[in-house]
């Protein structure tokens, strides 16, 4: 896949057309034949009319009609074929592109995800991929359809009368232009409508989220009035779209109508004079009407292709995005003997300000590191660097005395069990959530892990216990329960390094105490890092770092820090006071 990537990024349309040239070519041939058959019909109708008006015997009329029947058969077959062939083509393209986008996103890191909302990304996967599909599929198809038809109808028209042809079609070249212009305004309208829609949703969201406040102040009416302001804005935007949309039909039909009027005025003398037969006159009239589609098709098709191209620009941005941390390491590590951070400083990519200044520490196998500090002191950044969310200079983070960039990401990740701040669970079964990090597991593993965090009894009290779904359609977990689930999820992996990033903030003090006690037994042989704002959590650590403004303000064990660190002492006093009062 990666080898093809450069060509895909450079010329996406061509890349896919080449890849599926058989479908594309056979689809186009069927389309051309369909168009040819379609063009023949008015010709034959005209001929029949001539036969009828010259009073030939009925069986001669029957002969032409027989030909029409044969055309029906071929026409239906070709029409079916091009649709199917072409659909195969563009839906396969869409599938391929969709997978590429998702696969790429799955490799990307925080630099990509931070500034983007999930909704945008979903829209990229479904809407933008679809726009691209519409461009390469229906867009090109319609273009070709229009071009083929035009190339087929014009010779027939010229054959009837070259003079009529240019005179009646004189307005036609304006059609693609008009169509394109209207489409442009229409899209602008859609865009504005989308913005107003977001306002509207926002307004509704506020009302529903704040319903308790609204009710308790009995302000339902004022809120409805406020909602109506947004609702009106949205309605206006919809009306704008309606206006352009309504303009579409008439602006297509008027040139045809004028063509027909010109034919009536300029063509009839030729018919009366006998230079052109009545049947041909009728055929010509029908061809004028049929010219409208090729003309608008060019407008519509170009519009689709333009949009597809614009969508691909957004897609390309993702496909070209590089992961924050390239997976270039070759060394496999299977156990953690030591973790060392040497003079680590860090500035977030794209920013100026250093957030970590010269952090150093060393942890041996089985030791526990505590990290405390105020919000913004750099605790989470440090953890993010340890778990390789961002690149660090070589030699600043070492595992078993090997610099981390030399270690393969996969083996590093298998070494670490992380419990992040935000307790994110998947809408899967409780058991599947707990065993997320295991390739193979049975219920006992899950049960034991749940026991570690005192969740086993709660889970077993649910009717579906470990089979229960997490989330809206299953059990709704409290913040504390979620955090304990994520903790169990990390413990179940028996990882060499367990990192708790303020992971028990929503658990009440009493339960936290019990869990920590249990963990200390559990993690006796595991290296661990505990980030917390509660000193009780880190009291037992072998080493505690107090961070302030990205620097280590002081380090040591609990007893030492109470003496040595002003921040630590203040935190300690505050929490002690709370306990004693």
């Amino acid at each position, binding site marked *: 896949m990666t080898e093809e990537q450069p060509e895909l990024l450079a010329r996406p349309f061509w890349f896919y057309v080449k890849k599926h040239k058989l479908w594309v070519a056979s689809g186009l041939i069927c389309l051309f034949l369909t168009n040819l058959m379609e063009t023949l019909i008015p010709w034959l109708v005209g001929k029949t009319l001539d036969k009828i008006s010259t009073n030939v015997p009925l069986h001669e009329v029957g002969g032409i009609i027989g030909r029409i029947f044969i055309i029906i058969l071929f026409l239906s077959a070709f029409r079916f074929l091009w649709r199917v062939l072409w659909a195969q083509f563009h839906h396969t393209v869409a*599938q391929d592109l969709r997978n590429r986008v998702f696969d790429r996103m799955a490799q990307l890191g925080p630099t990509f995800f931070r500034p983007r909302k999930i909704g945008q990304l979903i829209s990229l996967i479904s809407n933008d991929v679809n726009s691209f599909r519409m461009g390469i599929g229906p867009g090109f198809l319609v273009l070709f359809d229009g071009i083929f038809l035009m190339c087929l109808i014009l010779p027939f028209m010229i054959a009837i009368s070259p003079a009529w042809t240019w005179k009646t079609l004189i307005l036609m070249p304006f059609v693609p232009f008009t169509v394109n212009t209207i489409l442009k305004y229409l899209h602008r309208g859609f865009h504005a409508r989308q913005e107003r829609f977001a306002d509207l949703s926002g307004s509704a969201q506020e009302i529903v989220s704040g319903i308790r406040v609204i009710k*308790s102040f009995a302000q339902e009416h*004022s809120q409805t009035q406020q909602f109506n302001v947004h609702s009106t804005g949205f309605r206006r935007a*919809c009306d704008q779209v309606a206006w352009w949309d309504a303009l579409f039909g008439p602006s297509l039909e008027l040139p045809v*109508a004028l063509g*027909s009027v010109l034919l009536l005025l300029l063509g*009839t003398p030729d018919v009366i004079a006998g230079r052109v037969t009545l049947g041909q006159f009728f055929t010509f009239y029908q061809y004028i009407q049929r010219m409208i589609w090729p003309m608008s098709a060019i407008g519509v098709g170009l519009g689709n292709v333009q949009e597809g191209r614009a969508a691909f620009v957004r897609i390309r941005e993702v496909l070209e995005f590089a992961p924050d941390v390239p997976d270039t390491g070759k060394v496999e590590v299977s156990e953690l003997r030591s973790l060392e951070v040497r003079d680590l400083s860090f500035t977030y990519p794209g920013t100026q300000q250093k957030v970590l200044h010269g952090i150093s520490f060393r942890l041996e196998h089985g030791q526990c590191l505590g990290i405390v500090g105020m919000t913004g002191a750099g605790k989470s950044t440090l953890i993010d660097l340890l778990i390789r969310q961002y690149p660090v200079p070589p030699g600043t983070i070492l595992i078993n005395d090997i610099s981390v960039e030399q270690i393969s990401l996969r083996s590093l990740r298998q070494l670490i069990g992380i419990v*992040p701040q935000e307790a994110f669970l998947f809408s899967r079964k409780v058991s599947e959530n707990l065993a997320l990090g295991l390739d193979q597991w049975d219920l006992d593993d899950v049960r034991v892990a749940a026991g570690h965090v005192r969740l086993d009894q709660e889970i077993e009290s649910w009717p579906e216990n470990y089979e229960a*779904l997490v989330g809206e359609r299953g059990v709704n977990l409290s913040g504390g329960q979620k955090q304990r689930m994520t903790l169990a999820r990390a413990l179940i992996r028996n990882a060499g390094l367990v990192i708790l990033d303020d992971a028990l903030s929503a658990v009440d003090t009493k339960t936290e105490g019990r869990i920590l006690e249990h963990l200390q037994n559990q993690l006796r042989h595991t290296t661990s890092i505990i980030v917390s704002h509660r000193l009780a959590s880190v009291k037992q650590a072998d080493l505690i770092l107090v961070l302030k403004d990205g620097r280590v303000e002081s380090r040591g064990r609990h007893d030492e820090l109470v003496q040595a660190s002003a921040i630590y002492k203040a935190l300690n006093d505050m929490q002690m006071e709370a306990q004693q009062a």
Partner: protein
Amino acid sequence: MSQHFFAEDNVALELTFVRLFRKLWPALWAHQRKVIVSLLLVSTYVVVGRALPFLFGYAIDEGIKNRNEQVIFMVAMAYLGLESLRAGLLFLQSCHIQKFGNLVLFDIRERLIAHVQSLPVSYFEKNPSGRTVTRVTNDVFALGELFSQGFAAIFVNMVEMISIFISLALISWMMTGITVVILPPLLWICFVLSRKIRFQFGATKRKLSMINAFSAESLGGIKILQLYDRTDEAQTFFEKLSSEYRVLQLSTIKLFATLWPVIEAFNIFTLAVALFLGAYFNKYHGMSIGHLTAYILLLQGFFKPLKNILERYNQLQNSLASADRVFHLLDEMPEDSSGRDFPAGRLHGQIDIEHMSFRYGPGLPEVLKDIHLAIKPGMSVALVGRTGSGKSSLIALLQKLYNVEKGDIRVDGLSLSAVSPKALRPRIGVVQQDGFVFSGSILANISLFNPKVTRERALWAAEQAQCQDILRKHGGLDGMIQERGSNLSAGERQLLAFARVLAFDPDILILDEATANIDSVSERQIQKATEVATRGRTCVIIAHRLSTILHCDLIVVMDHGRIAEMGKHQELLQQRGKYSELYREKEVPANGRI
């Protein structure tokens, strides 16, 4: 991996086009004039459209055959006039109907949002907010498409078909009769294929929402998936969904690829038949060439509306589900708004709770048991107790968010069951624990868009509630607060909630103190704001701060839905009962630092 991750409401569809139309009709008929104008525009448009083939036929018979150039000129001018008229009508008709639809949707949205706000609190506990928002926005939008792309378009196309049929019969009812014979098999094929297409559409749409839901969740938790080395698994699953989606789309297209050629084939077939019959009628019944051409032109126009109808009908079947959900929401029972008002003037603030018990629903355990409590005007009462002891339920009942089952709550001697929620709630101000703030200006957060709360009043309230720092930091009353108050600290959010209460000047105050960690500066400001807000009002406070508890006239200790103890701080401590137990366990957190 289980496939349960997507939470799409799979309500069995009870709505059909006809039933939906009946439900929608009152909303349409509310704008009678617009309905009538629409009908007039559509019918004139259709009549003008049908006149054109006749005119063309007339040109052939009277102009060309009779070599009358005068007639041809007249016809050409008439043709030009009619086509211009038709184009104009097409524009007006389409624009008018769409705008009309937008107006109706506006009405429906207004009705919905008003209705949503009238629903009992229990509704919001059961339904995630996102779902309700989707009803009011996306689903109504889908209903709109159903209206303009569906009803209106199908109606216009039907009228077209009927008018063409009548015109055909006018030219030759015999030829038309013979052509009509082939219609039933065509309609049957259309019906069968359409049904399959609709089914496929539904399946395709469901698959797409699975793809979206799966992507949303995987990308939301991408860090976890990466760190737990599960991205390969997610990719494989995505590719499976993606391929299933393509297969479904292809099978839909195959059905369409069958349906359209069939209709087209019938179209040409009828044309061929008409030509042959035309030749026969021309020969033996003197049908003119002009009539025959008009007939052929009309016939060619007959199948386009049929195609349109089928296309719309199939695609819009899915929007029916959205419409269905909209009407389901409208059918939700609102809370009982009946009851009388309090006498004019301020309340004294006497609250009597008389042997009151409460449960959230039949069969559920009682969360409040035999609560008996008299609160005199101007008194401050602190509620303390563990999580789940019934404090919050008691407060919800005081606001009549639920109805009392057993016993009674009286305010100024009037039973809450006799008072309407609308009358009660403005009298009781609530400062919520989470300090909910709206995204928007500080002013809007204080006034809640009520015009009665002027800028001056809001400013006064903000100052009283110690919001000076907030005002300074965010640029005064017009400063913008982000969604969920993310640019405010927990303490600041609570201060803003105080300002809101002060602006509305209630007679009774309910305060649910924040438990979150609050820095000492805010702590002091909140304390000050609490003092201002409680002054001269009856107050019921779920207290977490020792300083607040100490200020209260009465401490009510709740335990398992009962009142365990009542009294003052020192008395209660000396009793060595529940209160002192809570105090020791720090469930009455005592970080009352001043």
